[in-house]
C-alpha cells in the first residue's frame, strides 16, 4: 500500500473522484477553498467538470441538476455557506435527488444545521463525521454510496484539521456493495425512452402519467428516512464495559477525546468514550446501551451544546449528563479555538471527576 502525503482537502477530493464524482460546483470559503481548488485541478483530468459558481446557491443548484441527470455530483462550503444551500438540500431530499455536500466546517457549530436542516419538509440528511483524514478518505466515498442507495443528499461534516492537515493516505475505489440502477435519471429526451421520470417535490407526475401526489409521496419519503434511521446509524466506542465515566464526542474532537481517555486510563481512571460516526441517523440505541449504569456521561463538542440534545434524548440517565464543551474559535474565526487541545480536554474531564469524588 503506497502512501501519498496529501492535504486533507486534496485527499478528500481525490477520494471523491475515485468514487466516481464527476461534477463539482461551489464557491470559495475557508477552509473549504482547498477542496474546491483540488477539484478544479483533478476533475478535468478525470473527465469531469468543476465550476466556481457565482455563490453557494448557484453551486448547490448546479449540483442538483447534474445529479438529476444521473451524475455523481457534489458541492461544498463551510457551514456559513451551507446555510445558503438549505432550500436546495431540502428540495433534493423531497424530490429524491442524490448528491453530496462537503461541509469543510470552521468548527463544530454546524451540528444542528447538519442533523436538523433548515429547509422545509419531513426530511433528514445523512451526516458522516470522520475523526481524521484516513477516515475522511473513506467517508468521501461512503457518502456517494449512501446518497445513491437512498436517493438523498448526504452531508460530509469536515473541519479545519481534516481540511488542512497533511497525512500519508492511500486512495483507491472502495466497494460498499451493489446499488439500484439510476433508471430515474433525466436523459435529456422529452418522452423518448420513457425510463426517465420527472423529478418534482410534489410528485404530481405528468398529465399522461400521473404521479402519487404530495400526500402519498411525502409519506413515502418520511418512511424512507425512518428506514434509514433504523438501519444506517454508525458508531464507535471503547472501554465501555468497565467505565464509570463515558465521554461522548464527534469528528476531530472525538479523536482528541480518544487520545485523552487513553492517557487517563493509563493513570487508572475508569473512563471510556463513545463516538457517533453518523450524526444523523444518531446511534441512539447504541448510546442508550453504552450509558446504562454509567455514573457520568460527559459531552464534549466545540459549540454551546448541540449534540447534547441527542445525548439527552438517548442517554440511559439524563441526570448523569455533564456538558464539558463550549464555543471555541480561533482569532481568525476560520479554525478551532484553544478548546481543541488534549491538555485542555484532559483538565475539563479531570475537573468533573474531582467534583464527583466522595470525601
Amino acid at each position, binding site marked *: 500500500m503506497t502512501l501519498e*502525503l496529501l492535504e486533507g482537502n486534496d485527499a478528500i477530493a481525490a477520494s471523491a473522484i475515485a468514487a466516481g464524482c464527476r461534477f463539482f460546483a461551489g464557491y470559495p470559503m475557508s477552509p473549504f477553498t482547498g477542496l474546491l481548488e483540488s477539484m478544479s485541478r483533478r476533475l478535468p483530468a478525470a473527465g469531469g467538470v468543476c465550476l466556481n459558481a457565482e455563490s453557494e446557491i448557484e453551486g448547490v443548484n448546479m449540483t442538483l441538476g447534474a445529479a438529476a441527470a444521473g451524475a455523481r455530483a457534489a458541492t461544498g462550503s463551510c457551514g456559513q455557506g451551507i446555510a445558503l444551500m438549505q432550500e436546495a438540500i431540502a428540495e433534493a431530499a423531497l424530490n429524491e435527488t442524490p448528491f453530496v455536500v462537503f461541509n469543510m466546517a470552521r468548527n463544530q457549530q454546524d451540528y444542528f444545521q447538519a442533523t436538523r436542516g433548515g429547509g422545509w419538509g419531513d426530511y433528514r440528511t445523512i451526516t458522516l463525521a470522520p475523526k481524521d483524514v484516513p477516515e475522511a478518505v473513506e467517508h468521501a466515498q461512503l457518502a456517494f454510496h449512501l446518497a445513491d442507495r437512498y436517493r438523498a443528499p448526504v452531508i460530509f461534516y469536515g473541519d479545519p484539521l481534516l481540511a488542512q492537515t*497533511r*497525512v*500519508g493516505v492511500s486512495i483507491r475505489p472502495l466497494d460498499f456493495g451493489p446499488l439500484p440502477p439510476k433508471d430515474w435519471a433525466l436523459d435529456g429526451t422529452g418522452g423518448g425512452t420513457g425510463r426517465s421520470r420527472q423529478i418534482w417535490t410534489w410528485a404530481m407526475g405528468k398529465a399522461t402519467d400521473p404521479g402519487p401526489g404530495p400526500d402519498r409521496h411525502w409519506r413515502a419519503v418520511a418512511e424512507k428516512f425512518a428506514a434509514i434511521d433504523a438501519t444506517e446509524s454508525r458508531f464507535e466506542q471503547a472501554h465501555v464495559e468497565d467505565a464509570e465515566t463515558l465521554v461522548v464526542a464527534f469528528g476531530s474532537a472525538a479523536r482528541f477525546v480518544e*487520545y485523552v481517555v487513553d492517557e487517563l486510563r493509563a493513570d487508572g481512571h475508569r473512563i471510556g468514550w463513545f463516538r457517533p460516526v453518523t450524526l444523523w441517523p444518531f446511534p441512539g440505541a447504541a448510546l442508550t446501551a453504552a450509558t446504562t449504569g454509567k455514573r457520568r456521561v460527559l459531552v464534549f463538542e466545540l459549540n454551546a451544546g448541540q449534540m447534547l440534545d441527542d445525548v439527552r434524548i438517548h442517554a440511559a440517565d439524563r441526570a448523569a449528563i455533564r456538558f464539558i464543551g463550549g464555543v471555541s474559535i480561533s482569532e481568525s474565526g476560520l479554525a478551532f479555538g484553544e478548546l481543541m*487541545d488534549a491538555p485542555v480536554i484532559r483538565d475539563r474531564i479531570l475537573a468533573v471527576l474531582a467534583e464527583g469524588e466522595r470525601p
Partner: protein
Amino acid sequence: MERELVVTGVGGQGIQLLAKTLALAATREGRHAMLSADYGGEMRGGPSRASVVIGDGPLRALPVLASAWSAIVAHHRFGEPVLARLRPGGPAIVNLPLVDPASLPRMTVYGVDATAVATSVGAPQAIGFVLLGAYNAVTRLVDPASLVAAMEELLPPYRKQHAAANARALEAGAAAIGGRDVRHAEVRR
C-alpha cells in the same frame, strides 16, 4: 515508534518547506507521516510553525500535538507555546545566534549558525534546509538522500534552479553537526 518534531520561526525562514520536505521524505520511504502547519497572514516576519510526526504504522499523535520529542527553533519569537510542550531530554536544533540555547534548558540542544553555514555554501536563502540537514544528522529519522529527493520533488518548475544550492545546504547542515553530540556546539563555518 512515533517521533514528533515541532518547527518554529518567522515567515520567510523556510519553516513550512523544511517541514514538508521531512514529511514527504518519510512518506516516500513508505512510512506514515503527518504535517500540520500554522502561520500568520503575513508573508514575512509573522509566526510560522509546523509539526511533523513520523511513524512506522498509523499515527496516534493528534494534529495539535499534546507533546513533542524534538524541535527545530529558527527564531526566538512566537515559539513559546509549542516549545512548552517538548518532552525533556529530546533533541532541539537551535538557530544561532537568534536563539539562545539556554532557553531550552531541559532539551539536548544543538546550536547551528544556519545563516553562516548557508552563506558558506553559496545558499544564503536556504537556512531552513541547513537546520533540517542538521536535525536529520542528529535524529537520523530519514535517509539524507530522501531529503534531497523530497526537496527536489517539492520545488515548483520555476524554482528548480535552487535545487543544487538546497542540496548543499542540507549537506552542510549535517556536516555542521558532524554526527556527534555537540551540545551548545560552536559555530562551524
